[in-house]
């Protein structure tokens, strides 16, 4: 306690220096005077009295020094002094300081901002209980490895499985929500009642679904997402027991999910409704609409769970050959389900950021090494004047610390900015699938990373400044002619560093080039329709109001008519799913008259209006489009796409042939009336599947995806479109009103490629700059060390051009070596990112050539300045200086 008090006072003493000094001086002076007076009293002469007092009391200055040391903390005192000195030193070399701090800040900023994403997506555990034991369970077919399962299959799987502690399913559902302001479409999820217990999530308010809720009779209960509770119900506790009307059905709210709860596959879900097993889809084994989530039993691994599920799937195949033929099972960890696509991108980015930070550190270390070389005389002088090597080392360390602290601080600020920049790169439609990005920011993990990076920097920089100290030969250093071993070391080490830096820059540049090219390919992939001047929107009509087929058909017709009447509209069509959405909503077909060995052909099925293809300007290859007259009174017809025609009717005219379901039941048979070019139904980078199109008038429904071909700028149409639709019936919900081009640009694949391109490109540019700075440093240093040699050469008649050649050859050698190693490194890197590339060969010649050329140009720039300096050396002056 007493000691603590003393330390505290001594710490405070750091701030009252001058007053303390003055007081002790006065006290000592008084003491001396009193002694002299006493000596005079005892009969000594004036001089004698003073002399003897001084001798007796000792050195006043060292007394003051001892007092001062006791009054403050000498260690801190020295530290403050070191700091002041360091700041002065750094201030006097603004070029060096700015370069070092900025380079470090960029390195740390890039690393930390990327790390924040890695942390959010891959490191921070999912907000579920023991998330490592959760798995996603899917059915798999050849074409679709992670497909949704049917309710009946789920029941069989669940009954027979030995590996799951619990096994639940969920499915998409969209609702029309009645609000005081009108009808809105809202996103929901149907879940089996144990869903939240499997995840280990408990409602913050109200209750979870009961086991078996909804299974015997529709439960009509709902759980709210936290944000929905806040937004739609003002966060009031009396929300429990209130009702909401979704699709004309009234649901009682029984609970609210926690704020931390998130479910990335349906990030924006508002309502959670217990799955009813009375739905039409739930009673058919071939109606696939659900995704499985299960918790593994203790000691069960994902592969062994997969083996168990696969064997059950085989049993079901035998038991139900009609519906289950060719259906296996897939089990993957839940984290894989949620961040699967993102993981490789993030890991590549993090690796890139880590490398950049390393480059930055190495560069600064190199600069410090050069500086310590040029400071050897100063250090020798300070050593000769009595500075101990510990004191000098402390000086270097404090220099490293100041640089790193400045760089880290600036780096954090940069990281914060970069993070929001990267977040802006992600379109909103994609962000709803990444709820884990909420609350992204500089958290403890990021700070820890910064601290670790800073520590690394401090150690590295201290060591880089120090070799001079240990090899210091005072005499030779004082006389300035000395060439320590350090400069040889640096010339060897430094050039190796530069080679590594250039190789890194090369690898990153190649990656950026490949991503960029891949993005370009992707956005220019053949869609087989014209995406420009196309407005799109999705419409949900209340099922009760438009229950009969006639009503649905006439609603479709009315919407088309009203939109067509708008000024500037060329054509209007509608489909069940817009192009570029997914190869989903498939049906199983069998071709009449073809030999059949029980194979199962899964094809996307779209229900389209007569003018749909015309509106998209999709090319008709054969036969005819649908007509308004293709209704229920006419023979059932179907249009197939080019891939289906090619694959299943090779060398045959498909027109007039018939397609039906697996049993080829008479009412399922449809006659092929046309072949249309391959519309890209799925994602940009997935291959085109065989697809079938049915006329809306023969298979009407209440959800529409409308496409509008416009003569004017299509965006200007959007607000009018919503009004027109809702004017027909206030209960109709409209969503995703946008343009086809925007869909194209914001599609997840395009976004992934675009952000990869930008991020890797940004890093690559930064790496290039670092490599160039490093190269410049090494060459400039080499020139400064070879001044004498060059002087002699010129004195002996060397031309300026040969001096240029001498220096540039050194740079070319380094750049060439870096390029060579970079080439090898790129081979490794491309195998890592292979899955992310689209339509670009791994060894893409033009990209490699362009990167090599770019690097060569920058290497030339970096070495030209020192080379010119060398060529301007005045031979006489150079020789005299030595």
């Amino acid at each position, binding site marked *: 306690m*007493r*000691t603590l*008090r*003393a330390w505290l*006072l*001594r710490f405070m003493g750091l701030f009252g220096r001058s007053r303390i000094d003055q*007081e*002790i001086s*006065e*006290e*000592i002076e*008084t*003491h*001396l*005077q*009193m*002694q002299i*007076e*006493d000596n005079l009293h005892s009969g000594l002469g004036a001089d004698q009295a003073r002399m003897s007092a001084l001798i*007796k*009391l*000792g*050195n*006043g200055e*060292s*007394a003051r020094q*001892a*007092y001062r*040391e*006791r*009054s403050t903390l000498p260690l801190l005192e020295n530290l403050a002094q070191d700091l002041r000195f360091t700041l002065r030193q750094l201030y006097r070399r603004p070029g060096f300081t700015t370069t070092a701090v900025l380079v470090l800040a960029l390195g740390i900023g890039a690393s930390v901002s990327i790390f924040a994403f890695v942390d959010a997506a891959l490191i921070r555990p999912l907000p579920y209980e023991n998330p490592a034991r959760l798995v996603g369970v899917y059915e798999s077919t050849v074409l679709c490895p992670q497909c949704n399962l049917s309710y009946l299959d789920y029941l069989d799987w669940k009954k027979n499985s030995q590996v799951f502690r619990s096994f639940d399913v969920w499915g998409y559902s969209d609702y029309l929500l009645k609000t005081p302001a009108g009808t809105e479409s809202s996103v929901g999820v149907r879940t089996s009642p144990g869903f939240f217990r499997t995840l280990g999530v408990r409602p913050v308010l109200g209750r979870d679904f009961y086991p078996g809720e909804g299974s015997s009779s529709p439960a009509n209960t709902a759980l709210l997402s936290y944000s929905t509770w806040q937004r739609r119900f003002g966060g009031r506790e009396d929300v429990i027991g209130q009702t909401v009307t979704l699709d004309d059905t009234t649901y009682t709210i029984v609970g609210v999910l926690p704020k931390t709860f998130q479910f990335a596959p349906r990030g924006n879900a508002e309502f959670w409704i217990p799955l009813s097993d009375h739905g039409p889809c739930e009673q058919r084994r071939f109606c696939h609409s659900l995704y499985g989530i299960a918790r593994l039993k203790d000691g069960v691994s994902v592969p062994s769970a997969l083996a168990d599920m696969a064997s059950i799937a085989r049993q079901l195949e035998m038991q139900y050959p009609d519906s289950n033929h060719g259906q296996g099972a897939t089990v993957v960890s839940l984290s894989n389900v949620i961040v699967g696509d993102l993981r490789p991108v993030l890991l590549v980015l993090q690796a890139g950021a880590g490398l950049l930070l390393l480059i930055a550190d190495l560069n600064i270390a190199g600069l410090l090494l050069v500086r310590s070389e040029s400071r050897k005389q100063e250090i020798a002088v300070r050593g000769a004047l009595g500075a101990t090597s510990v004191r000098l080392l402390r000086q270097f360390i404090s220099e490293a610390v100041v640089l790193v602290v400045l760089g880290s601080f600036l780096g954090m600020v940069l990281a914060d900015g970069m993070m929001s920049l990267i977040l802006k790169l992600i379109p909103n439609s994609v962000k709803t699938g990444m709820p884990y990005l909420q609350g992204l920011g500089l958290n403890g993990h990021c700070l820890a990373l910064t601290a670790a990076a800073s520590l690394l920097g401090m150690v590295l920089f201290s060591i880089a400044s120090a070799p001079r100290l240990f090899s210091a030969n005072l005499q030779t250093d004082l006389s300035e002619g000395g060439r320590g071993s350090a400069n040889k070391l640096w010339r060897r080490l430094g050039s190796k560093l530069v080679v590594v830096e250039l190789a890194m820059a090369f690898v990153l540049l190649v990656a950026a080039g490949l991503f960029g090219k891949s993005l370009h390919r992707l956005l220019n992939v053949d869609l087989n329709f014209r995406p420009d001047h196309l407005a799109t929107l999705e419409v949900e009509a209340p099922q009760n109001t438009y229950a009969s087929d006639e009503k649905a058909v006439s609603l479709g017709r009315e919407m088309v008519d009203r939109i067509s009447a708008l000024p500037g509209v060329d054509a209007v069509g509608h489909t069940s799913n817009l192009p570029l959405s997914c190869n989903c909503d498939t049906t199983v077909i069998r071709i009449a008259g073809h030999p059949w060995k029980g194979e199962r052909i899964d094809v996307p099925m779209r229900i389209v209006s007569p003018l749909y293809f015309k509106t998209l300007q999709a090319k008709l290859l054969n036969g005819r489009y649908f007509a308004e007259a293709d209704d229920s009174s006419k023979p059932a017809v179907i249009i197939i796409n080019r891939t289906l025609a090619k694959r299943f009717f090779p060398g045959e005219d498909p027109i007039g042939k018939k397609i039906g379901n697996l049993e080829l039941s008479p009412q399922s048979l449809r006659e092929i009336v046309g072949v249309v070019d391959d519309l890209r139904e799925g994602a940009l980078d997935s291959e085109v599947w065989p697809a079938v199109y049915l006329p809306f008038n023969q298979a009407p429904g209440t959800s529409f995806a409308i496409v509008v071909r416009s003569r004017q700028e299509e965006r200007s149409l959007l607000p009018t479109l919503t009004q027109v639709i809702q004017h027909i019936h206030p209960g109709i919900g409209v969503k995703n009103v946008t343009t086809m081009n925007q869909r194209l640009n914001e599609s997840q694949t395009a976004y992934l490629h675009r952000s990869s391109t930008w991020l890797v490109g940004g890093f690559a540019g930064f790496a290039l700059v670092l490599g160039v700075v490093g190269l410049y440093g090494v060459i400039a240093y080499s020139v400064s060390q070879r001044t004498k040699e060059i002087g002699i050469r010129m004195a002996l008649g060397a031309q300026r051009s040969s001096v240029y050649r001498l220096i540039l050859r050194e740079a070319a050698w380094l750049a060439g070596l870096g390029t060579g190693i970079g080439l090898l490194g790129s081979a490794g890197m491309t195998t890592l990112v292979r899955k992310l590339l689209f339509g670009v060969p791994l060894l893409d010649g033009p990209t490699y050539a362009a990167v090599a050329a770019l690097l060569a140009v920058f290497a030339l720039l970096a070495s030209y300045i020192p080379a010119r300096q060398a060529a301007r050396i005045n031979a006489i002056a150079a020789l005299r200086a030595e």
Partner: protein
Amino acid sequence: VSSDKDLFQGTLALMILKTLEAMGELHGYGIARRIEQIAGDQLVVRYGTLYPALLKLKQEGYITSAWGVSENNRRARYYKLTRAGRKQVENESQRWEKVTAILARFLSPGEETI
């Protein structure tokens, strides 16, 4: 004149405290003179040892100081014991008595060997 600096420094704090206990308020020179007198001029108190020791005691809260005027009309800093200081005199005195008693036994070895 003693040159046993270590021993002296270890005991100086107690000497100062004891002096202040006996004399009440006193300035640095007075403390030094008093210690020297009691030690029979076997000790010399230099200000290089005295003032840091006074400062340490002050930081530990055993003494306080205030500026005042000496008998010769000089400005001088006067030191006096605090309550904690009085207690400390007692504790330290007891400790030293114990230590010296033990040492005394070592220094008169006759009794030990009997």
